[in-house]
Every structure is written in C-alpha cells, then in structure tokens.
C-alpha cells in the first residue's frame, strides 16, 4: 500500500470504533423504535408486527397525552425564561468583573459536579413541612402550623431552574467574553448612556449565547422525569413520565416507542430551527 493510501485510511481507522458505537447504540436503535411504534401490543402481551397506526393515533389524539405535552412545553418555556432572567445579569457580572473572575467561574462549575438528584432533593430540606422555611415561619410566629409548599408545578419549575441555571450562565458568559468591552466604551464616548450602550451593542452581540443556553435549558427540562417525581405532585407528570410509565410500568413498548418519538420530534424540530438560524458552533463552545 502506498504511503498516501495509508495516510488516507488512518483517520477512518481511528474514527471507526466511535462511529460504530454511536451507529449501533444510537442510530440503529432509533430506527428500530420507529418501526416498533407501528407494531401492536396485544392483550396477551405479545407484539404483533405490522403497520398499525393505533399507537400514533393514541399519542396524537388522546387529550390526556396532548394536555401533558402542552404542559411539558409550558413548564420548559417558563424554566427557560426564568434561567435567562436569573442567569444573564450574573453572567454579565462574571464577564466584566476584574478581581475574582477565576473564583466566580470555579464556583459556577461546581454545580455540574454535584449530583442532580441531590440538588433536586435538597429543596425538600428547604420547602418541606419540616424544612428551613417552615421552621423560620413557625419560630417567628407568622404561621401556627407548617405549610406544605412542595409537590406542585411551581416547585417542579424551581427544581428545574436550580438544575439548569449553570448551563445558561455558562453559555451567556462564553458569548459575553467574546464581546470587546471597548465597543461599549466607544458607544459611550459617542454619546450614548451606559444602559443604551449595553442594549444596543453588548446585548445583541451576546444573543447567540443566550439562545444556546436557552435551547439547552428548554430541551433538558422538556425531557426530564426525575424532577416531577421528586418535587411534583400526582398531577404534575411531564411527558417523559408518560414514556417511563408506558415502558417500565405498563410494558406497552410499541406505545412507549411512539410517545418517545413524539418527544424527539417536537424537541428535534426545535433543534433544527436553532441550527438553521444559528448553527451548532455556539452550542459547542458553551459545552466545551
């Protein structure tokens, strides 16, 4: 074999294990559940192979599934907006601070190293019947009985915001780091106020970071099922809970396939729209 031919083959040899793994463990299985979603789970528990639209019909038209899809998207949207509102000023502060930037960044990375389930359950210590808030309220004499503040939609959103906020701050920070401070100074020297300079110059330039953080927050919160189980009540199920229910509890795998593909379709469409307008570059910057 010539040296050139070997040189050309080398990268593919290096890539093949990873590509094979992702092909066999992600793409083939995804294709498989597309086929599977058209099968039918019979009353006996056996699968009937074929082309049946029953699962898709159920996933698309059953008001129960539709309502939960909409409430899942609503929860994800509120979470994303809350993360942006809380996260943007913090990211701005980190990007523009002089002295303690390294410490602030290190602290920002810490939540990524703390277990998701621990961060989620930590709110039970704060808002639970015997949690910190109730203890303070009782001792101050404001209430005479502990109030149950947990297990409703707001606490689910609270848990999600707490979990996803670092993703938002990090993405906005990366974008703001790329915006030259002297641009704002230039705008000011040309007669705009600080606030105008921020609104007209820095904010638009940092929007790609905000969008990348927003996409991550939205997709990750819409796909969650642990947070509603820990911090939500019986009626606060999100779409991924339906998937879990169908697959693990009811063992109706064809229906579970259709439901997962619904979720993938809705969130995938969002990713495609994002990719069309902004490309994946910004997202990768924030993740790396």
């Amino acid at each position: 074999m010539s040296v050139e031919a070997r040189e050309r083959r080398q990268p593919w040899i290096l890539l093949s294990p990873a590509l094979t793994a992702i092909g066999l463990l992600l793409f083939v299985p995804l294709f498989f559940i597309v086929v599977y979603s058209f099968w039918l789970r019979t009353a006996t528990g056996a699968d009937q192979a074929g082309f049946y639209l029953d699962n898709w019909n159920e996933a698309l038209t059953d008001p129960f599934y539709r309502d939960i899809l909409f409430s899942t998207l609503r929860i994800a949207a509120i979470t994303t907006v809350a993360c942006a509102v809380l996260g943007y000023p913090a990211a701005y502060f980190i990007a523009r601070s002089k002295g303690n930037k390294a410490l602030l960044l290190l602290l920002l990375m810490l939540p990524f190293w703390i277990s998701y389930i621990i961060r989620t359950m930590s709110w039970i210590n704060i808002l639970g019947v015997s949690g910190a808030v109730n203890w303070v309220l009782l001792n101050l004499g404001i209430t005479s009985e502990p109030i149950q503040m947990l297990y409703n939609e707001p606490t689910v959103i609270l848990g999600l915001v707490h979990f996803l906020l670092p993703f938002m701050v990090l993405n906005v920070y990366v974008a703001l780091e790329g915006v030259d401070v002297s641009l704002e100074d230039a705008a000011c020297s040309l007669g705009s106020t600080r606030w105008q300079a921020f609104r007209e110059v820095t904010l638009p330039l940092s929007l790609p970071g905000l969008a990348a953080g927003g996409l991550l927050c939205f997709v990750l919160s819409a796909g969650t099922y642990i947070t509603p189980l820990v911090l939500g009540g019986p009626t606060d199920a999100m779409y991924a809970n339906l998937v879990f229910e169908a697959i693990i509890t009811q063992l109706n795998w064809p229906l579970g396939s259709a439901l997962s593909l619904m979720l993938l379709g809705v969130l995938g469409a969002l990713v495609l729209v994002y990719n069309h307008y902004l490309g994946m570059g910004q997202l990768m910057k924030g993740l790396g």
Partner: protein
Amino acid sequence: MGWPLIRVYTLLVYLFMFLPVAVVVLLSFNASQFGSFPMTGLSFRWFVELAQNEAILRAFRTSLVLGALTALISTTLGVLASLALVRYNIAGRNLISTLLIAPILVPEVVLAVALLLFLNFLSINKSFFLLLMGHVIFTLPFVILVVQARLVGIRRDYEEAALSLGASPVQTFFQITLPLLAPAVFAGMLFAFTISFDDITGTLFWKPGGVETVPTQIFAMLRNSISPEINALGTVMIFLTVGLPLLGLAIARRMAMQRGG
C-alpha cells in the same frame, strides 16, 4: 442597572445555587432523628449508619465500577476519534462531528428507550452490560468535546521531530503523543466518570432489578421520606465529586509551581 445592583443580584443567584446544597451538608451533621430543622446538636451518627448500610455500600461499589469502566471505554473511543478529527483533513468532517455529538442532542429518555428496546429485541435483557453500553454512549460526546479542545493546543512539531529522527509511528504515539495527551485523556476520563456516576435518567431504564447505583438508591430512599441518612449520603457524594477534584487541582497546581520554581 448600576454595577452595585448587578453585584448584589449575582450574589443572590450564587446563594440560590448553593444554599440548598449547603443545607444538605449542614443537616447531615444534625443529631436529631428526623432529617430536618431544628439542629439539636452536631453528630456523626448518620455517617456511621451509612457505613453500615449494606444496600448503600453495594450501590457505591456498582457506581464506582460502572463509572470506571465507562470512563475507560468512552475515553479510548473518544481519544481515537478526536485524533482523527483534529490531526487529519477528512472529507465530511462537519457531518462526522455532528454524528459523534448526536447523543447530546437526543433527549436522554428517548435514547434510553431506543437502546433498551433494541437490545431487548436482540435478546439482550436489562443487565450490567446494557447499563454500561448506555453510559458509554451518552458520555462519549462530552469526552470528544473535552479531548478535542485540549488536542487543538498540542503542536505537531514534536511528533514530526520524532518521526524524522527515525521513530516508528507507533513509537511516536506512545512516547511523544500520549504523554502530551495525558492531561486531555485524564480530563476526558474524569468527565466521563462524573457524568456516569451522577446519571439517573437512563440508569432507571437500563438497570436490572435489584441493582442500584448511588443516585437510584437515593431516589428509592426518597420514596419513603427525607431522612438524615440521605443528607449524609448527599454530603459524601458532594465530597467525592467536588472535594476530591478540587484537592487534585490544588495538588497539581502546587506541583507545577514547585517544578517551575
């Protein structure tokens, strides 16, 4: 908004991020028998009980083995793929990059369902093997991103020098490239381990009955109610996943300073 206002706002955001976790650590030392306020005194009793809880120790062992194997496999695949992407000019590089990070773009629940049902179709049931494959697939993109970012910073000159002085490509890889790569490999492994150690979403789908990892064990314990033991377990986890890497970082920095001075 004035600067002082943004400063206070940021402080509040950081408090929001860390206060609940700090309360977990605080309550784990609470002597009271319920995992809640008020603090009745400082005590290590919950850590002692933790160390005697067979189920939790088993979960720890499972998580450690799973995380270590995931890190090993994922980093091997990831380093090879990153080398190809950074070191060679290949056709369709953007497409390949997108394919390699696809597992991040698919919601984890969907990935979990697809893998579970497909392997079941191939008569591979819920098992430690399925769990391991699942963890490899969703840690791989993160490893590739981290390793690639480090790899870009390594100059090719050293390798070319070794090659021109007569070293074989294999010798060059093991004696020149790999040592230069070590920080990237280490970062990738640490990242993969942490993600695997922390995962619960996919794990609940893939784990065989009776097998628990630390997060699923905590989740199962939460079903009853929050107990001081869970807070203690949380504190141990925080120490392991935050304290140890920080300690490692500090030691590494110190060693680098000593070498420099």
